[in-house]
């Protein structure tokens, strides 16, 4: 039996099918960043409350979140339902961290979040050499349809993510952070989520009585006047760029600290350079706080610490390559 020669109509059909398949694959790849943009807007600009379980290293903790957005102003209350019952409250320009177990309150100026000057990372083509994005499938989470997005790093200097985004709101109802071997590092899973029209003011108030607690205040200004940060990291992983350089004071310290922020658009690393007179006794070497890595060393009598939700080698590389320009 010989195969019939394809006629002109059949040839056109095959070509159209092939083009459609290619287009679908391309749309799928392009859709992932679009979903991520939607997600970033959702977590900032929606009004919502919910309860989520944070899992790391076999430990599960429950937290409650209330988030409000009004006229470009973000308010948020994050409450730990387990352990010491810590609370973090963002009220416009201030972030208040309440540690009842330490009888301590940290007050830090919030970074200004404006819908016009967005702080959100932009998912540009510049990310493509460093991450692979894929739209995986639709699944049901919390009785809502979610779109699963995969973000896989192409090198060992950043973590990967798997996100379950609510198809209606793009809120991440489930988030997994994975290392370069695709091993699960951390997972955040909402157990209930409610999208609100507005957040009642009382829902954003602290529930802990802080009378008698010691308060530590950070600088009221985002950057001290006349401050110019001369330090820069000479070696950073591909795609990381300096996005902020500020001098300000941290809560509990009277000396200014230089703060550099490097980001590849997805992962962020902060570098803190202490004043030589400040005795910030962070030990040299690696530290970990949950899934966050930190690396400290002493340079020219200054304590330098890099922190970020990135692998250890990344914070080490950035901190170690710091020089004064």
């Amino acid at each position, binding site marked *: 039996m010989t195969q019939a020669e394809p006629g002109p109509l059949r040839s056109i059909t095959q070509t159209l099918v092939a083009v459609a398949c290619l287009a679908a694959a391309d749309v799928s790849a392009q859709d992932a960043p679009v979903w991520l943009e939607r997600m970033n807007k959702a977590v900032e600009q929606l009004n919502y409350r919910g309860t989520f379980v944070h899992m790391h290293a076999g430990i599960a903790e429950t937290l409650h979140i209330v988030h409000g957005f009004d006229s470009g102003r973000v308010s948020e209350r994050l409450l730990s339902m387990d352990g010491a019952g810590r609370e973090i409250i963002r009220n416009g320009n201030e972030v208040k961290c309440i540690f009842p177990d330490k009888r301590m309150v*940290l007050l*830090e100026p919030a970074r200004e979040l404006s819908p016009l000057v967005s702080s959100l990372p932009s998912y540009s083509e510049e990310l493509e050499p460093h991450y692979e994005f894929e739209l995986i499938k639709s699944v049901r989470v919390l009785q809502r349809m979610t779109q699963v997005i995969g973000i896989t790093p192409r090198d060992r200097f950043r973590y990967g993510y798997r996100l379950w985004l609510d198809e209606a709101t793009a809120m991440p109802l489930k988030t997994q952070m994975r290392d370069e071997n695709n091993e699960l590092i*951390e997972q*955040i899973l909402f157990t209930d989520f409610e999208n609100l029209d507005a957040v009642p003011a009382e829902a954003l108030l602290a529930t802990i009585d802080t009378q008698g607690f010691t308060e530590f205040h950070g600088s009221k200004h985002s950057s001290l006047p006349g401050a110019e940060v001369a330090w820069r990291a000479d070696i950073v992983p591909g795609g990381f760029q300096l996005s902020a350089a500020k001098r300000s004071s941290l809560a*509990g310290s009277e000396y200014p600290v230089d703060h550099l922020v490097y980001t590849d658009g997805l992962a*962020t690393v902060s570098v*803190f350079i202490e004043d030589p007179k400040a005795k910030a*006794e*962070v030990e040299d070497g690696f530290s970990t*706080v949950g899934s966050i890595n930190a690396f400290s060393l002493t340079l020219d009598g200054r304590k330098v610490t890099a922190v970020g939700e990135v692998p250890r080698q990344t914070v080490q590389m950035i901190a170690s390559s710091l020089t004064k320009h």
Partner: protein
Amino acid sequence: MTNRIQDQVSAFVDDELSTEECRFFVRRLARDVEARSQLIRYATIGAALRGEVFHPDPEILRRRLQGAMDGAQPAEAVPSQLGSRARRNVFKPLAGIAIAASVAVVAIALSRPGNDGGVTDSVALQAQSQLQELELDGLPSYVVPPESAEQRIVSPELRLTNYLVRHGEYASGIGRTVVHSNVMIHTADDADTPADGDPE
């Protein structure tokens, strides 16, 4: 560090132990390195607080130290001239830290190998003398002279927490939630600091 030791240290600092429990705790300090180091850490945090508000109630200090060192029955609490209960509560933990520092010094002196009674007595006498000075002072509260800037020590756990909170402000929306969650859950003072230097 077991929870029990932490609880004891915390209760001691918060002035929640009875005189008998306090005496027992001081004896424990003399032989328990872990408890002592925890107490010293509290005292270090107290040092970091200097220069902020630091007005411990001398009556609490006198009562607790006296009870701890010579076994005397604590005197009835003299109503503070500061008056309000709220104010007392504000300074209670700070007073506890001051006591912790003082008692830690006594405990270390007591536990030092080869220490003779003379040295121990000397430390106790010195502490008693300080107490008398406080009493003679007759003031409702005392203020620890602010240390010079060069002397200020910021405890590492506070500083690392500071870094994370500030860092979280620059993370993306979901990144900030991740950072804040970790600050909430993984206390900065139990941050794991492995000794090895190589990441791989």
